[in-house]
């Protein structure tokens, strides 16, 4: 299929439909309202469900309900809206209901701003809602990658019966780039008859299927949490996605960066290269599971003197970088969180400063 020029938000909506998701419940919020706007037109064309709920809380419980009934379902929001949805996300995780959430991040905390930010890294990877759960978290750095991640998210959510979240930002949502919707990522919803509340699992069953997140009897809660833990361990083995840049050189410093910020870093690395300074980059595409071993190996390369986490936040992913580098290299952080995307030159200056401060 020929490439088309699309805004990130519209491409995300189209990608969900192409991936076979015909249910959208949402509530508008800048900078991702175009997703709902697009789907309000597109869903009826494909006999799908578009529903604007009365709030993010309502939309997220519609997601929970539709998923429990066995439907492929997704919603989208931006940071404050995801906070409101976090309770239902925790319920989905506990009840093992697959669903796809998209967070087009804006600056925070609070109502914050409407410009690009990566301030929800902790929320997406470490918590959000209450309890012992994780989301599978993917972070695109282009409109094309956003499309591919959305299309992959539905089968992954069903494989693990767990919510998946795509962590974009205002730039990914608002930018137009050429995209295509790869045929090989088209999938059909999996058979959910063994657990979904569409009746009994089989004709011969004696009990109806039940979806619940309340476990009061005996060890049932412990058992459920063990079951969830086993899924997260499996994700760590099977679902890590990661990209790199300029990593085959004897780089003096390593940048770890994801999403929009990683594109600025890529340009900065090109500028540094022209000046004779080699800097490599690891770009996690999944933030949970985190590419621990890949970041560690790249950081421990003998030529590498220092590792810098570049973020549109006041220092969140840097904690994961520190964790995997294990003190064997100095780890620094550079970030901007006021809705400003820095110029590549600012990254160049920071890397020169960091390299100067950590001489061999």
């Amino acid at each position, binding site marked *: 299929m020929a490439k088309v*020029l699309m805004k990130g938000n519209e491409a995300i909506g189209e990608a969900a439909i192409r991936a076979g998701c015909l249910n959208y419940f949402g509530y508008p919020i800048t900078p991702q309202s175009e997703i709902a706007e697009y789907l309000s037109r597109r869903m009826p064309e494909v006999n799908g469900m578009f529903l604007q709920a009365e709030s993010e809380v309502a939309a997220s419980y519609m997601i929970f309900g539709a998923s429990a009934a066995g439907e492929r379902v997704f919603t989208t929001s931006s940071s404050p809206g995801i906070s409101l949805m976090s309770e239902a996300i925790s319920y989905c995780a506990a009840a093992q209901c697959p669903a796809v959430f998209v967070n087009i991040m804006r600056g925070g905390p609070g109502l914050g701003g409407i410009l690009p930010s990566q301030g929800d890294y902790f929320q997406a990877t470490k918590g959000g809602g209450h309890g012992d759960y994780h989301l599978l978290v993917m972070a695109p750095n282009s409109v094309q990658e956003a499309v591919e991640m959305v299309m992959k998210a539905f089968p992954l959510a069903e494989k693990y019966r767990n919510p998946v979240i795509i962590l974009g930002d205002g*730039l990914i949502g608002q*930018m*137009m*780039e050429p995209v295509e919707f790869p045929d090989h990522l088209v999938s059909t919803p999996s058979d959910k008859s063994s657990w979904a509340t569409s009746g009994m699992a089989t004709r011969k069953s004696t009990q109806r299927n039940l979806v619940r997140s309340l476990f009061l009897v005996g060890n049932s809660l412990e058992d459920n949490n063990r079951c969830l833990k086993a899924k997260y361990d499996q994700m760590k083995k099977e679902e890590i996605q990661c990209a790199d840049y300029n990593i085959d050189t004897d780089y003096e410093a390593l940048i770890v960066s994801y999403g929009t910020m990683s*594109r*600025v870093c*890529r*340009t900065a690395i090109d500028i540094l290269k022209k000046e004779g300074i080699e800097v490599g980059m690891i770009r996690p595409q999944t933030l949970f599971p985190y590419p621990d071993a890949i970041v560690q190996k790249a950081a421990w390369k003998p030529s590498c003197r220092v590792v810098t986490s570049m973020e549109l936040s006041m220092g969140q992913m840097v904690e994961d970088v520190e964790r995997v580098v294990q003190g064997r290299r100095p780890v620094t952080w550079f970030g901007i969180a006021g809705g400003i995307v820095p*110029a590549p030159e600012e990254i160049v200056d920071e890397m020169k400063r960091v390299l100067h401060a950590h001489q061999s």
Partner: protein
Amino acid sequence: MQMDMMFTGFGGQGILMMGKIIALAALKEGKEVAWVPSYGPEMRGGTAYCTVVIGDEPIGSPIIQNPMNLVAMNQPSMEKFSQLVKPGGMILKNSSLVPVSSHRTDLTEYEIAANEIANDLGTVKVTNVVALGAFIECSGIFSLDLIRDILNQELSKKPALLDINLQAIERGKSACVSI
């Protein structure tokens, strides 16, 4: 090679559409392209701008603080953005609404009386397309035929508007002058 440009003016002037037509042309040429709008708490009549980056390789940072090429469709945009253009760059101003020059000697400056020409054609709504015609002339970025193709494609559902837009792009191209 990478080329970047910034289209600036006020909301309602069709600024974002100018960038989009260029981005569509780049796509048709098989180039990599990123189009980024200004977005924020804007309103009709407020400032509007977009940047377009075109290249043969995947686009790194799509955010351009210092563009090589600037199209200034109104006076506030000229004042705000002309000092940001890279030395050796180019400014195209809409002389209908921008009486001043950038006072810069390290770049080339062109002008087009876009509003007058659009009014002459019958509607001020094609001001942006007139300026776009001037832009392809002074930047040499794409051929007139390619832009015609894009207009044909984009206006296929509005045939009544196609003819005047095709006239606008040609008038703009031939009326662009260096200052």
